[in-house]
């Protein structure tokens, strides 16, 4: 019988009741009496010098309260970057200022120049037409290699477009080169990891409010991490002490990374509300989101794999150009480095690895983490080069992988790229995948496709990711300017119900359901007795928020830690009430019993005693039942899995259809299998979107050509197959209390190489053996061109 509550139950998402009935409370639903509306005037050119801004006519227009420019932010700091990467020569990365509103120069299409604040949005938009902005257009640099080879400078004051030149592991470089010199076979692949636009369903919104008499600022914003925004904006941009700044991120309609960062619009509405003494609201239009939300991926990579005569991987060498865009977004520098280079061992025993990453400024929208963040880029290049090596050597891609897997008895496994995998069983997920995808029956299916003139291909990809970021002392050494613990306060109410205040943030992940399941399991009360509160810095403990598949692994662990404190205290109270030894008290199904007796107290007896302490050991213990815990993980978690994609290619048109997709994941323990499957489905849709459809394109002048849903192809239901997903090959995480690893990004990480591998396999089966690689998205045009050489 499946469980109907607690850990492991397929509990329906309680938050869906409000989302599906239109009762969600998103930031745009917040309207404060007297609020003004802000309209941003953004650069139409990718690079230019601001000669003049004349706001006088606009300020005289109906309803206009004020037009802001950078002059109004003279005392403010720039938007800070939260991670410092050090170059191979020991120098820190170049870190140009990222002003709230453009100062002197504009550096990408969409760079905010001025803001009209008016009584109504229509008035603000009308007045924006009257703001005279004279810009001298400068040559823009879009191509990364041109940018570092003498192209126009994005930031004149730093003298270079090369943000950093990172080598990892620098000490291994000579040994890697030597291994390549000795290799029996070397496979080389050059590829592009295409730039993506996150496009969460809810565009970004920010509402600033200010209370003159108390000096209290409130920012309502579409954020994945309100405490991080409070810290960055308060301390670095606007100089507001934390106790005078409240940041609220209510229901948030998807983030996928793009809502992690501190954005100019947040600082703007907060400051403008103070200046104007009225609330100020900004809601992004979809067009605005395309040119102001941080974008994702955008790597150009050359990867080489060295093998010995027995086909053992002996070394891996990579060179990557990573696009930063025009400014450093909050966590941008760590994505192509510490979230990318450290994953290049993949699931394999490759003993020597060296990667060089050059981060480059260009006149494009800033780039930062997007679902997977660095790990999809690492997985894509690795799984593509392994597939190419198998073809060159004439061996099965399945067997080449299996041969080089880290073996189940080798865990914990120290990789040559710093990280230590605690658990895993890659052979098991591979076997499960081959079984679920009926790999044995593939040849028969391929023959059947051939009869219909279609080329069928099977693509395999394995992935590993480092989730649950991270031990704070470790990331501190690696350049993080923040700790990466998580927090929870568990407040038991007098009559036994529980309110959990978590530092994690849910924007689609279903925390309100899963976190309640965990509490329900631990205490033995019904999940309906548990409320999960998140997203408001005024009532939740300082937390780092939700990204990198960390909520349950880190935030859940903090909650477990706090709940264990609660249980320990409750047992002391129970021991007092039942006049027994604390060591003999057991908690099961919401009842406290004394071992070996029939004495029993209910959960509510104890909670009531804690708040009505008439019979209570007051000399030994405080009344009340509320505990806070901070959890700082001792290691990353390492979800891993095997993905299989089956495609049919029409050689006449180049059209690719995904006919089957199978995912065998190891997420460790699973709290709610239904939610986990949903996360995998969503991740797969985004990974397949990247592989098949999505592409962010700028023209040579830096104009965004894929600037709307007319040109930026989002995956739709009919682009996707029914998935077969499985998470039964679980090797629980060894270092967090729930044994969980994280599941949010896996689908987006493992699926792109599986899709491309399948397309290449199909083409080879059709005799088009000259095709060794096709860059994503594998559109019909690209496939057709590849076929026709």
């Amino acid at each position: 019988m499946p469980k109907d509550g607690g850990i492991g139950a397929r509990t329906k998402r309680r938050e869906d009741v409000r989302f599906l009935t239109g009762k969600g409370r998103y930031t745009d639903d917040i309207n404060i009496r007297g609020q003004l509306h802000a309209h941003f005037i953004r650069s139409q050119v990718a690079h230019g010098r601001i000669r003049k801004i004349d706001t006088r006519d606009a300020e005289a227009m109906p309803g206009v309260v004020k037009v802001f420019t950078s002059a109004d932010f003279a005392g403010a700091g720039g938007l800070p970057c939260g991670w410092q990467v050090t170059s191979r020569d020991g120098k820190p990365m170049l870190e140009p200022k990222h002003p709230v509103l453009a100062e002197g120069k504009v550096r990408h299409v969409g760079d905010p120049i001025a803001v009209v604040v008016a009584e109504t949005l229509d008035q603000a938009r009308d007045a924006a037409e009257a703001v005279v902005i004279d810009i001298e257009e400068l040559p823009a640099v879009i191509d990364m290699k041109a940018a570092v080879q003498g192209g126009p400078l994005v930031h004149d004051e730093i003298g270079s477009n090369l943000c950093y030149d990172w080598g990892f592991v620098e000490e291994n470089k000579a040994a890697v080169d030597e291994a390549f010199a000795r290799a029996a076979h070397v496979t080389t692949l050059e590829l592009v990891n295409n730039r993506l636009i996150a496009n969460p369903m809810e565009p970004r919104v920010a509402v600033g409010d200010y209370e003159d008499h108390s000096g209290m600022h409130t920012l309502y914003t579409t954020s994945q991490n309100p405490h991080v925004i409070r810290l960055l904006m308060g301390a670095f941009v606007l100089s507001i002490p934390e106790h005078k700044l409240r940041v609220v991120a209510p229901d948030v309609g998807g983030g996928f990374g793009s809502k992690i960062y501190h954005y100019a619009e947040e600082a703007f509405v907060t400051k403008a509300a103070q200046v104007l003494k009225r609330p100020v609201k900004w809601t992004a239009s979809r067009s605005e989101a395309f040119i102001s939300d941080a974008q994702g991926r955008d790597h150009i990579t050359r990867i080489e794999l060295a093998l010995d005569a027995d086909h053992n991987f002996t070394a891996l060498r990579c060179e990557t150009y990573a696009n930063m865009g025009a400014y450093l977004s909050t966590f941008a520098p760590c994505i192509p480095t510490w979230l990318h280079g450290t994953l290049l061992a993949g699931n394999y025993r490759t003993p020597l690895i060296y990667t060089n990453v050059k981060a480059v400024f260009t006149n494009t929208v800033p780039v930062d983490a997007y679902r997977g963040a660095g790990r999809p880029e690492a997985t894509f290049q690795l799984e593509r080069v392994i597939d190419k090596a198998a073809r060159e050597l004439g061996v099965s891609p399945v067997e080449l992988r299996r041969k080089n897997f880290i073996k189940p008895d080798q865990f914990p496994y120290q990789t040559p790229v710093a990280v230590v995998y605690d658990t895993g069983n890659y052979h098991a997920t591979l076997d499960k995948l081959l079984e679920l995808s009926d790999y044995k029956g593939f040849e028969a299916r391929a023959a059947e496709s051939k009869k219909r003139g279609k080329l069928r291909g099977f693509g395999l990809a394995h992935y590993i990711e480092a989730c649950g970021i991270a031990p704070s002392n470790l990331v501190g050494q690696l350049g993080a300017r923040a700790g990466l613990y998580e927090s929870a306060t568990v407040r038991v109410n007098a009559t036994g119900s529980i309110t959990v205040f978590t530092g994690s943030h849910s924007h689609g992940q279903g925390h309100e359901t899963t976190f309640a399941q965990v509490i329900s399991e631990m205490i033995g009360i019904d999940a309906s007795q548990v409320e999960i509160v998140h997203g408001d810095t005024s009532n939740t403990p300082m937390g780092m928020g939700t990204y990198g598949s960390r909520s349950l692994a880190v935030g859940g662990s903090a909650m477990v830690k706090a709940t264990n404190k609660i249980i320990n205290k409750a047992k002391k109270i129970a021991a007092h009430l039942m006049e027994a030894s604390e060591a003999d008290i057991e908690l099961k199904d919401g009842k406290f019993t004394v071992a070996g007796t029939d004495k029993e107290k209910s959960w509510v007896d104890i909670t009531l005693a804690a708040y009505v302490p008439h019979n209570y050991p007051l000399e030994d213990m405080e009344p009340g039942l509320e505990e806070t815990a901070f959890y700082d993980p001792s290691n990353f978690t390492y979800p891993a899995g095997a993905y299989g994609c089956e495609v049919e290619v029409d050689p006449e048109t180049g059209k690719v259809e995904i006919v089957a997709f199978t995912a065998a994941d190891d997420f460790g323990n699973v709290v709610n299998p239904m939610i986990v499957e949903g996360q995998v489905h969503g991740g797969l849709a985004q990974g397949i979107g990247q592989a098949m459809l999505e592409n962010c394109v700028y023209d040579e002048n830096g104009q965004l050509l894929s600037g709307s849903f007319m040109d930026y192809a989002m995956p739709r239901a009919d682009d996707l197959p029914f998935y077969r997903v499985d998470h039964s090959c679980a090797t629980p995480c060894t270092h967090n209390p729930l044994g969980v690893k994280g599941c949010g990004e896996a689908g987006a990480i493992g699926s792109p190489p599986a899709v491309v591998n399948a397309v290449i396999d199909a083409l080879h089966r059709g005799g088009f053996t000259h095709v060794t690689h096709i860059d994503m998205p594998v559109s019909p045009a690209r496939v057709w061109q590849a076929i026709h050489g």
Partner: protein
Amino acid sequence: MKLSDSREIRAEPAIVWTAILNPEVLKACIPGCQSMTGSVAEGYEAVVKQKVGPVSATFTGLVQLSDIVEGRSLRIVGEGKGGVAGFAKGSADVRLEPVEGGTRLSYDVEASVGGKLAQLGSRIIDGFAKKMADEFFTRFQEAVEGPDEEEAAASAAEDAPKKGWFKRLVGG
């Protein structure tokens, strides 16, 4: 984007040349042109109303003539600012050469757009630019050489500037 084309006009090069330098001709030939003032030496200020895909806007801009080789070639450079709709800019290198029965007019056009026009209209901008260039030179041809006989009869009743009006004006 770039595009090149040529067409033969049934008028002498001297007449074609004079027409190109005439702001009234430019105004009549630029599709959507609301006004045009200025001179060859100082350039023209123009107001042009156009709709590109989903974006409609009134562009105000400057048209300048340069690289003038009397009677043979010149460069027309224009930039129009459409406010929130974005901007469009382009140039046309125009060459005239005598052919039997008239003049061959050849042009190389380069055009680019920015802002919302590029963001929303990039897919249709090539076709749009080609249509604009075609329309401009077709109107220009008609203004200079006049219509076919039957077309002339058909358009005689309309109020619009008559085809061939420029040629008649200069007595060609």
